[in-house]
């Protein structure tokens, strides 16, 4: 156990600290103790850790344990000279880049100097060493080592950051996949619901009609009344199912916004709604409707429900009259749908866009309580907002704010006549 504790402090010293408050290692290699001491004395002013070696072998031993900012290597040593030592140092990939300053005592020939540079010397110092020159040169390498370490740390941080980001991306992709699966399942589920759940309801209303047609005359008013109640209940459940499905689809429909012309959309909705209406509503569409930046299906759902409400919630005997217009609002288009209906008390305005909220006297009228929730969700999904201005007996003015068509699009896509 005690052996494993030894490498700990060594490990800590190995790296070159980036922080100037921490010391770095400087290796002095010289066979003459006097010179070692003299150089150590000069460099001690730098406040760094100085490690000394008496020969090449000792130097290599230190290199196994520490990283050095710079190595000062005496050329003229017995057995293994400075050049040999340098060449051995350079063989280790870890020290390929460690700066080596050769210290040479005699008049070095140019050839010798070239040999030194080939072995990776970065500089030469000549004996006797001038203390200022030694200090200045070593200081440069101490700083260089720190800078290198800073860059290395940053690169490591960046790599770690990238790795983390990659991992996060994977997690997000996985979640996306899961979500897609869930959506597909939900899609299949709602498809099944819309077919299978509504089929029996259709049968109920179908048989009620058969009974009324074939056996109606044999029933008294009460009997026929019960059949009509049965029919209403089945139709109401059908409407609820349909609206819940619409809400579900509005909530998860993939939304990409595009230019939408309101007039053709409104006309299609109105012509569909008016089928079988005993008291057709008077609907006035302003001639200068602005295009909006929206989603066709979501807009269709919103407007259909708003127009349906406007025609539905009207005092008995009164002809519904609806005005539809737009007004520009600084990057937005406000669409108004104003009716002459029963109106909504101000105290309910905050509630009506919620799910299953049916307020005031609405129990007298048909409605699932989902319509305005669909409007709210659909508008929200297009990045817009909606609201109402109304008072009991004074009609309702519903508004929907949607982004106006971006300028670039306006020039690209010519407005349809």
């Amino acid at each position: 156990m005690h052996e494993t504790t030894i490498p700990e402090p060594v490990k800590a010293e190995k790296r070159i600290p980036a922080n100037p408050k921490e010391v770095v290692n400087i290796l002095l290699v010289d066979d003459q103790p006097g010179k070692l001491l003299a150089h150590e004395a000069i460099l001690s002013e730098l406040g760094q850790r100085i490690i000394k070696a008496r020969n090449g072998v000792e130097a290599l031993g230190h290199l196994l344990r520490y990283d050095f900012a710079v190595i000062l290597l005496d050329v003229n040593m017995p057995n293994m000279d400075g050049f040999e030592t340098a060449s051995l140092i350079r063989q280790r990939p870890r020290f390929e880049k460690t700066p080596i300053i050769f210290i040479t005592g005699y008049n070095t020939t140019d050839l010798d100097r070239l040999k030194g540079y080939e072995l990776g010397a970065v500089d030469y110092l000549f004996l006797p060493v001038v203390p200022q020159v030694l200090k200045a040169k070593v200081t440069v390498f101490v700083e260089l080592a720190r800078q290198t370490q800073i860059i290395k740390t940053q690169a490591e941080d960046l790599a770690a950051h990238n790795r983390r980001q990659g991992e996060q991306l994977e997690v997000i992709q996985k979640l996306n996949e899961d979500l897609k699966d869930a959506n597909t399942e939900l899609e299949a589920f709602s498809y099944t619901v819309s077919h299978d759940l509504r089929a029996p309801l259709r049968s109920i209303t179908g048989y009620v009609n058969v009974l009324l047609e074939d056996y109606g005359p044999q029933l008294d008013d009460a009997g026929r009344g019960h059949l009509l109640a049965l029919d209403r209940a089945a139709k109401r459940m059908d409407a609820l199912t349909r609206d819940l499905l619409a809400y579900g689809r509005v909530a998860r429909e993939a939304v990409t916004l595009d230019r939408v012309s309101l007039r053709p959309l409104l006309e299609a909705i109105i012509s569909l709604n008016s089928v079988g209406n005993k008291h057709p509503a008077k609907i006035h569409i302003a001639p200068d409707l602005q295009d909006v930046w929206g989603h066709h299906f979501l807009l269709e759902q919103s407007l259909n429900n708003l127009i349906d409400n406007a025609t539905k919630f009207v005092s008995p005997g009164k002809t519904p009259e609806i005005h539809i217009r737009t007004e520009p609002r600084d990057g937005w288009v406000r669409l108004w749908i104003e009716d002459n209906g029963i109106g909504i008390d101000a105290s309910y305005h905050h509630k009506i866009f919620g799910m299953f909220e049916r307020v005031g006297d609405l129990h007298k009228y048909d409605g699932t309580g989902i319509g305005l929730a669909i409007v709210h969700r659909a508008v929200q999904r297009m990045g817009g907002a909606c609201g109402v201005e109304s008072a009991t007996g004074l009609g309702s003015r519903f508004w929907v704010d949607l982004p106006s068509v971006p300028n670039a699009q306006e020039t690209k896509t010519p407005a349809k006549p």
Partner: protein
Amino acid sequence: MTAVEQPIRILLVEDSSDDVFFFRRAIQKCGLSAVMSVVMDGVEAIDYLLHQGKFGDQAAHPPPDIMFLDLKLPHVNGFEVLERMKQHAECPSPPVVVLTSSSHPEDQERAEALGALLFLTKPPTPEQLRQVLQKVSFDSTLNL
């Protein structure tokens, strides 16, 4: 207006006996004379058209003038029936009216892309059926 003497031969592909009942009733009320054959799933529909299996007797199971096809069927659904009809060159392809319980626009587009003539939400009214059958019989009179 040409009077239609021959009854129109209808093949109804529908698995719900309730819906078969309502369909038959609407046909009876539409004011045109029609003969109806009913099969309960997609496999039988293809067998009928190709005179295969229990529909081998052509005289007993004459080729229909028009086919009403429910989309949601056991085994082989309505879309697959349309696909198979397209794949089999030898398969007689009467005009197909798709019947569905919900008006999913995607369903409608898909059925039309597969060659369906019309798309009706269930239950079809006698008036709707009268219009469709009149058109088919008028077209076939022209062909004769």
